């Protein structure tokens, strides 16, 4: 049994403009001691799915369906009080902007102590001692003094360390990190990632890391789910995603990571267009308006997440055939641009079109 198993999760927000399909039938599982990276642009539903796990999207205008099994319990069926006792205790979360995520009027130590006292029967003094320990654990120098300081007296990296300390206060089984490094300097980013990895190894918890940056998950994730417009469009081990990516969107993400090892000749290629509206979603494949390899059929048929032939555990939702995808990725990898590879998809169109004729 997985620690966390999400099955066909759908989250919709009813607004005045229409129904927002924020998360649209996603499934994934996380095992103890492993790290899942959920990657996608803003608005792809990655944050909403995690907040839903925590029970933080519940409300009058939200419709949620599917199951979220945590240690065999369905969190979607749990009462508010049950969820409250799980939040910050068994499942903890850290957020993107550590300054706005810490309360400006309370000392860092007070906020740590509060987290512990919400779930444990500790004396204030014991909780404070543990707060100092936790600050030490996350690498904050001089924790005895720091514990009595306010968030605004911390630097950005220190604040995120304090957030991590707060998340770890009750030794959670699952840590959800939502863009934990996005608001930080590059050098600090690497430190925070190293810290998270180190803590995971020492504490043996499961980690879900949510990011728009494949470079971040490359470092620490065991498994990656790529999300687009509320769905998972590609899912596999980190190795599979980086060595044989299958989805044109994943290719786009990969080609837009700056790399120091390839040299400047390898241009960064942005993904053209904007993420689609989640109220009026595109027909067919949601990615088709931005896909360089789009064919007529892709505008009508909605692809399902299916296993990739000959690559166990790797799934993709793409209407291009595996052979064509392989050729296009080979071309992209050798430095050709999408424009010149478009023909590969066209040959497939011709081939597909000829099939019914051959049948008659």
């Amino acid at each position: 049994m997985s620690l966390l198993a999400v099955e066909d999760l759908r989250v919709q927000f009813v607004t005045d403009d229409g129904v927002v399909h924020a998360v649209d039938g996603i499934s994934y599982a996380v095992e103890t001691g492993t790290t899942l990276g959920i990657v996608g642009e803003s608005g792809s539903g990655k944050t909403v799915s995690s907040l839903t796990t925590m029970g933080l999207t519940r409300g009058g205008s939200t419709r949620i369906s599917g199951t979220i099994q945590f240690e065999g319990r369905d969190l979607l069926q749990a009462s508010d009080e049950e969820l409250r006792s799980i939040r910050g205790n068994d499942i903890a979360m850290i957020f993107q902007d550590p300054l706005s995520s810490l309360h400006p009027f309370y000392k860092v130590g007070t906020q740590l102590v509060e987290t512990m006292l919400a779930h444990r029967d500790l004396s204030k003094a014991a909780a404070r001692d543990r707060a100092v320990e936790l600050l030490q654990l996350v690498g904050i120098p001089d924790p005895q003094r720091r514990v009595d300081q306010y968030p605004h007296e911390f630097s950005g990296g220190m604040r995120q360390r304090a957030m991590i300390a707060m998340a770890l206060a009750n030794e959670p089984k699952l840590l959800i990190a939502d863009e934990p490094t996005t608001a930080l300097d590059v050098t600090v980013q690497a430190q925070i990632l190293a810290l998270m990895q180190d803590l995971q190894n020492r504490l043996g918890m499961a980690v879900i890391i949510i990011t728009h940056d494949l470079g971040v998950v490359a470092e620490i994730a065991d498994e990656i789910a790529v999300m687009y417009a509320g769905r998972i469009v590609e899912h596999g081990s980190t190795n599979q995603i980086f060595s044989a990516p299958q989805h044109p969107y994943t290719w786009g993400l990969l080609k837009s990571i700056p790399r120091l090892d390839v040299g400047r000749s390898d241009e960064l290629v942005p993904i053209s267009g904007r993420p689609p509206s989640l109220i009026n979603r595109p027909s067919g494949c949601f990615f088709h308006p931005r896909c360089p390899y789009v064919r007529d059929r892709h505008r009508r048929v909605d692809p399902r997440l299916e296993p990739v032939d000959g690559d166990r555990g790797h799934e993709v939702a793409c209407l291009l055939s595996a052979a064509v995808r392989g050729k296009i990725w080979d071309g992209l990898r050798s430095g050709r641009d999408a424009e010149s590879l478009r023909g590969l998809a066209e040959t497939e169109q011709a081939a597909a079109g000829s099939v019914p004729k051959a049948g008659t």
Partner: protein
Amino acid sequence: MTKYIIRRLLWVIVLLLVVSFVTYLIFYLFPSADPAALRAGKNPALIPQIRKAYGLDKPFYEQYWIYLKNLVLHFDLGTSYTNNVSVKSEIFQRLPATISLAIGGAIIWLVMGIAIGTISAVRRHSIFDRLAMGGALVAISAPVFWLGLVCLFLFASDVGKLKIFPGSGSYVPLSQDPAKWFTSLIMPWFVLAASFAAIYARLLRANLIEVMSEDYIRTARAKGLSERRVVIRHGLRAAITPIVTAAGIDIGILLGGAILTETAFNIPGIGRLAYDSIQNADLPTVQGTVLIGAVFILLANLLVDVLYAFIDPRVRYT
């Protein structure tokens, strides 16, 4: 911090000088009556004599200088033109009534404003919220003198329909009879507090709604705190700052006299004194009430700024 407070106190003195000068100037330039004639009463023959005795024949700046000298050296605010008593003793005698009214009213409006504002924000668009905000609009729009008269008409034990509370002019000092003091102030307190409670409820509601969408509220929920604790310890704590500011200044203003409420209920406070002295063109008393009002407002402002540093740890004065 100490340096900051000393600097601010020096400014208070400068501002008080400006206020006293401007009040003096207004009365000198646009006198509503001849002070000497007021004092002479039914004996106009005394006017030239009075003018000389009180220095009213001297030039404006000299009169002001004498006033200031007396004020600074002897803390003497002069003598009333109309009833020949020292303005200082008159003000100090009336201060307890005004303080009773202002502080009691403030307690009521703070409790009501904060409670209603919080519930309205948490249960946004509920029936409670709609009724409370509708009621707040009425309370803000109703003029105090009108509300005061309506209450007297309905509840006053002498002229009212229901005869529940003591009516106009029933004020008794606290030192004389605490029970009567309390009952006589119930209606004035609520009348005074009505519009403030409404303003505070709306202000807090708007603030709290904004605060509840902050990231640190999401963090508080993610920590597994109870919703009650999230709202009170995290939301209200951050949303209350403008309320503290407003309360400090409003109480400061009212300590200088709640003119309308004191007049409607005939409470012998500073506000009533100011009202009467303006009616009688009694410059020393007007000057005295204006100055005491200015002192309260300026000190309240200073207190609020100092308090701010305690409420919000990010604020530091140098």
